[in-house]
């Protein structure tokens, strides 16, 4: 069962974290980043369905996955600013943040990179007899790269325990998904590899959690991969700044009306699990945490020049 209050807190934290980064960027205090505003339910719904043993691969749009997994916004922000206290010691910046301690491994900003790497991670899990499945987050655009095909086919024929999560947010940078494929289903391609494909409303955190839980359970039981497609929408631009001049206003408005955070809050209120006072307190807690995070990141030093070549070879 999904802890709704916890889910709401995480979703609000993700939102606040990304909006804080946008603000910092506006002030010239942080580099531009790729936000997943509007997609928080997908990240929290999937990650909340995983166990601590499970591993996660993500991509350039990773903040939701990391925070849902318990990443500290302060260390994330420090990383985005290229500071020494970031999860990668400032060597990643915003685009390829791995946090091995949290089980978030091999983050690549090459679209499709995560798909090419997750099979090897899953192979290690099976051959080294480790518990834990592998979750690979990627976008609808990544599903057009050849690696999608190669990865799903290998995972199917080698029977690798991978939960493929295609976060279909209708956009691939500045290109609408409709321009890149016929039809609307990416999950539908799973059948071609002899594996199961599932589609879920990516803005309904409970629905995502349920679908991911079921898929993960099936993967643990069968050792076989599953492709889960979460349908959602990128409410902000590809990266900051982006005026979204190329976005259809009506489509954007329709999706804004289905913003997953108010959706969950309203549902909890209706169920008597939340009232304005509690929501207010939550907002304040989150805001305070983010303020602290900014302070931490600002205070963190930059890596020294030796870091340039410190990690090239093991």
């Amino acid at each position, binding site marked *: 069962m999904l802890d709704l209050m916890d889910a709401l807190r995480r979703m609000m934290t993700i939102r606040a974290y990304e909006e804080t980064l946008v603000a910092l960027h506006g002030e010239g205090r942080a*580099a531009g980043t790729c936000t997943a505003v509007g997609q928080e339910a997908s990240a929290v719904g999937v990650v909340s369905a995983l166990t601590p043993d499970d591993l996660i691969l993500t991509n350039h749009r990773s903040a939701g996955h990391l925070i849902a997994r318990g990443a500290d916004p302060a260390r994330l922000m420090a990383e985005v600013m*290229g*500071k020494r206290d970031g999860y990668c010691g*400032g*060597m*990643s*910046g*915003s*685009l*390829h943040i791995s946090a091995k301690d949290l089980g978030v491994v091999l983050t*690549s*900003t*090459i*679209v*499709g*990179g995560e798909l090419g790497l997750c099979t090897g991670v899953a192979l290690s899990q099976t051959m080294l007899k480790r518990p834990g499945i592998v979750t690979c987050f990627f976008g609808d*655009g*990544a599903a*057009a*790269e*050849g690696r999608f095909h190669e990865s799903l086919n290998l995972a199917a024929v080698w029977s690798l325990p991978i939960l493929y999560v295609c976060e279909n947010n209708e956009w*691939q*940078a*500045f*290109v609408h998904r409709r*321009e*890149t*494929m016929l039809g609307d289903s990416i999950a539908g391609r799973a059948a071609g590899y002899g594996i199961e494909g599932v589609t879920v409303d990516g803005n309904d955190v409970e629905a995502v959690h349920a679908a991911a839980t079921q898929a993960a359970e099936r993967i643990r039981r069968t050792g076989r991969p599953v492709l889960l497609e979460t349908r959602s929408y990128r409410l902000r631009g590809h990266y900051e700044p982006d005026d979204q001049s*190329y976005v259809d206003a009506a489509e954007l408005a329709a999706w804004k009306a289905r913003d997953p955070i108010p959706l969950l809050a309203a549902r909890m209120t209706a169920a008597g699990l939340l009232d304005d006072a509690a929501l207010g307190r939550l907002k304040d807690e989150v805001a305070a945490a983010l303020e602290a995070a900014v302070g931490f990141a600002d205070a963190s030093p*930059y*890596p020294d*020049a030796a*870091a*340039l*070549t410190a990690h*090239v070879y093991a």
Partner: protein
Amino acid sequence: MNEITARQITTSDAIGEALAEEMRRDDRVLVFGEGVATKRIDLLAAFGPQRVRNTPLAEGIIAGTAAGAAATGLRPVVDLLFAPFLCYAMDEIVNSAGKLRTLSGGQFAFPMVVLAQTGSGWGVGAQHNHNIEAWFVHSPGLKVAMPSTPADAKGLLKAAIRDDNPVLLFTDLGLAFAPGPVGASWDEEHIVPLGKAAVRREGRDVTLISYAKTVHTCLAAAEDLAGQGVSAEVIDLRSLKPLDEAAILASVRRTGRAIVVHEAGGPCGMGAEVAAVIAEKAFAALRAPVIRLTGPDAPAPASFPLEQAFAPNADAITAAALRACREPLPA
């Protein structure tokens, strides 16, 4: 071209102008890539959705489609965005466009252009910023250029589009939005031929050889050096393949000293090629070791101060030039 009265435009605009002029001149020219039709909305308006296309997110098939189209009558330009993404298109560029002409005994030609950006300046890190131009210089059948000014970006792209061979045009992220003088936009004959270097500053004592962003660093160093009584010549290669060996050798045979500078890593980089050409063909004129100054052999960092420290800076170039002038050197 009169630099005083010339318009000031950015490299990004210069590329747009080159595309527009060449598409107007030749119906067979088309451009496609991930977001090209969204970002170059003016081209879309002018030439329509057949000739200005967005694509699915798949560099391999973008480059392959360009090669197949080039061999059968079109003259495609593809934007692969950032140089590291070319890793997904190496087969199409190297094994197909670079080799199938020879393998078929000359039955096909590949008049196509691949655009990509790279270099420090945006803090995007090593998966967006990796200067791999040397890979393509090392591959047969390809041509490679990397401009240091908006005017050269425009002129080289126009030359590349008119060339019957596959040309890779890399542009420097750090220079993308720096304005520079470019001739009248209707000047369709503003062509910078592939294979011709430019002497950016004349000098007697030492030759500084570079391309892209670090040409400007060399010019700054040359200024410092002048203040210290050393007259440095600065050569902007512009084309990496074909390489203007004549320009390099003519200068080094006069100065007797050469320093090769670039942001790309050292091992088997462009600097190695230039140094080797000099060591073989201008040896008798050399009065000092040929010095290479390159970016570290390491993935490019995102963190601001590290990225600033990545490419060779003017002080390092000045110091190397002064060392070279303290001839003769011990082994």
